[in-house]
């Protein structure tokens, strides 16, 4: 059976160059980067080289990059660490209703500590409004977090404008760029952000490594305590191999982005048109154009997402419904609900995220195989009246 992986938004395969680089570290450079002897020094050097690569990829200075254990950690350090370090200046924070749980749940925990959080709404396509953001600003606003692009529906947010306003008002601005690095240009100077989070496993790097950009001069309160690693913000012996892997991955991701994103965009559009054209009562979630090049999110009325995923899986197609990270949860996607979808429509959403391996044949296969699956599930559905 053909196997078609269309869940690159959940995670990506590790690219060959990354595996090779990591293997070399594991087998040859095992020293502790904090050791000053000749087993430790090469490990330190590899970390600093990777830091330069990450910095370069997003237009930052190497000193502004902190390696973390995941994108989630990077989000948490920026938001919780940034808010706590600045609570004397104010208690008000702003974010959006469509953030990833790594951001939303960080804000929820800050609410328990006495911070006030304004959650910006989104329009029917998942976009926040700069105007609503401006109205939400208060004198005691200290930190704002708006994701660069949404992981479920791919909506790209007006982060540059929001960042500019924050910078003028000296408010810390964090953006979760976990989904955009390697897909659309990401430059911390253009975004005007103070923090930016990214993750290795979304860009053909390893799982368990992320990075936080922290603008020079910005201070946060650490969440974990211990050794002095990563400027005391991520104490614990460094994951040298994964750090190296992230460096290699981001270098490649950014280099091949222009060509690859254009290629994926074409495939994605054909996929969307194919599905919407062949199956009735389907709709595209998120914008037609201002969206991630590899993301297609489609609601298929009268059927439920998990049943759809399982059925597609049995035909070799790996996709997701809502966000993979919250599967196991029974609630419909908070993003789709925020966009105004009904419970049922939100439940029947299908996210297909394309990537390196995706070919024209894959797209054809999905278009051909999806309809009979949907027909079968609808025939089983008490809400489908035909």
């Amino acid at each position, binding site marked *: 059976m053909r196997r078609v992986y269309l869940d690159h938004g959940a995670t990506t395969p590790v690219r060959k160059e990354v595996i090779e680089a990591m293997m070399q570290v594991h087998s040859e450079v095992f020293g502790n980067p904090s050791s000053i002897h000749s087993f430790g020094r090469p490990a330190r050097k590899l970390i600093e080289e990777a830091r330069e690569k990450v910095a370069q990829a997003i237009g930052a200075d190497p000193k502004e990059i902190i390696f973390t254990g995941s994108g989630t950690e990077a989000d948490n350090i920026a938001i919780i660490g940034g808010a706590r370090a600045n609570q004397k200046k104010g208690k008000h924070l702003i974010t959006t209703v469509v953030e990833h749980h790594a951001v939303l749940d960080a804000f929820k925990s800050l609410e328990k500590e006495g911070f006030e959080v304004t959650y910006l709404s989104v329009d029917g396509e998942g976009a926040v409004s700069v105007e609503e953001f401006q109205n939400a600003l208060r004198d005691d606003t200290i930190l704002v977090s708006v994701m660069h692009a949404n992981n479920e529906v791919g909506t790209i947010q007006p982060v540059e404008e929001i960042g500019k306003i924050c910078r003028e008002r000296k408010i810390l601005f964090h953006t979760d760029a976990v989904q955009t690095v390697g897909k659309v240009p990401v430059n911390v100077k253009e975004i005007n952000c103070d923090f930016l989070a990214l993750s290795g496993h979304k860009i053909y790097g390893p799982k368990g490594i992320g990075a936080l950009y922290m603008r020079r001069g910005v201070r946060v309160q650490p969440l974990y305590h211990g050794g002095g690693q990563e400027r005391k913000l991520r104490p614990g012996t460094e994951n040298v191999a994964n750090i190296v892997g992230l460096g290699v991955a981001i270098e490649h991701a950014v280099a091949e982005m222009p060509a690859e994103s254009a290629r994926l965009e074409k495939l994605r559009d054909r996929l969307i048109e194919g599905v919407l054209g062949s199956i009735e009562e389907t709709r595209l979630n998120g914008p037609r154009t201002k969206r991630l090049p590899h993301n297609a999110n489609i609601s298929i009325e009268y059927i*439920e997402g*998990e*049943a759809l995923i399982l059925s597609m899986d049995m035909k070799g197609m790996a996709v997701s419904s809502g966000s993979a990270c919250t599967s196991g949860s029974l609630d419909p996607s908070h993003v789709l609900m925020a966009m105004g979808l009904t419970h049922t429509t939100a439940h029947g959403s299908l996210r297909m995220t394309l990537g390196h391996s995706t070919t024209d044949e894959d797209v054809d296969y999905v278009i051909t195989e999806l309809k009979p699956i949907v027909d079968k599930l609808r025939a089983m559905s008490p809400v489908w009246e035909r």
Partner: protein
Amino acid sequence: MYTDKVLDHFTNPRNVGEIEDASGVGEVGNMKCGDIMKMYLKINDETNVIEDVTFKTFGCGAAIATSSMSTEMIKGKSIDEALNLTNRAIADALDGLPPVKMHCSVLAEEALKAALLDYQKKSGKNLGLNEDDFEDWDEE
């Protein structure tokens, strides 16, 4: 996460469909996840045997598999046997469900009881079912 039996019943669900002149029809919904399950019973009024049973489900893999399994478990059985079917028995017959999915089996038990309640109303027989009991079934 799902056992082979769950996947089998999900992929090849038994007794899908509607019964035109059903003796009882039950429809339940689990608001938490927006799922809906509908069950149709054809009961022999003399023998009290469930001669046919079908379902329609909008729901997750576990919801579809438990619907299918529950219809198999009561087809040809007496009303009394059907009344004694618990969600745990359905889950066990599927070799178990992940903890987070146990509530889907409750949906199946509930749909069956709702169909029997409908039959109780239509037939005038007293099966001992009470409209109010349905409140309790929401959670395991």
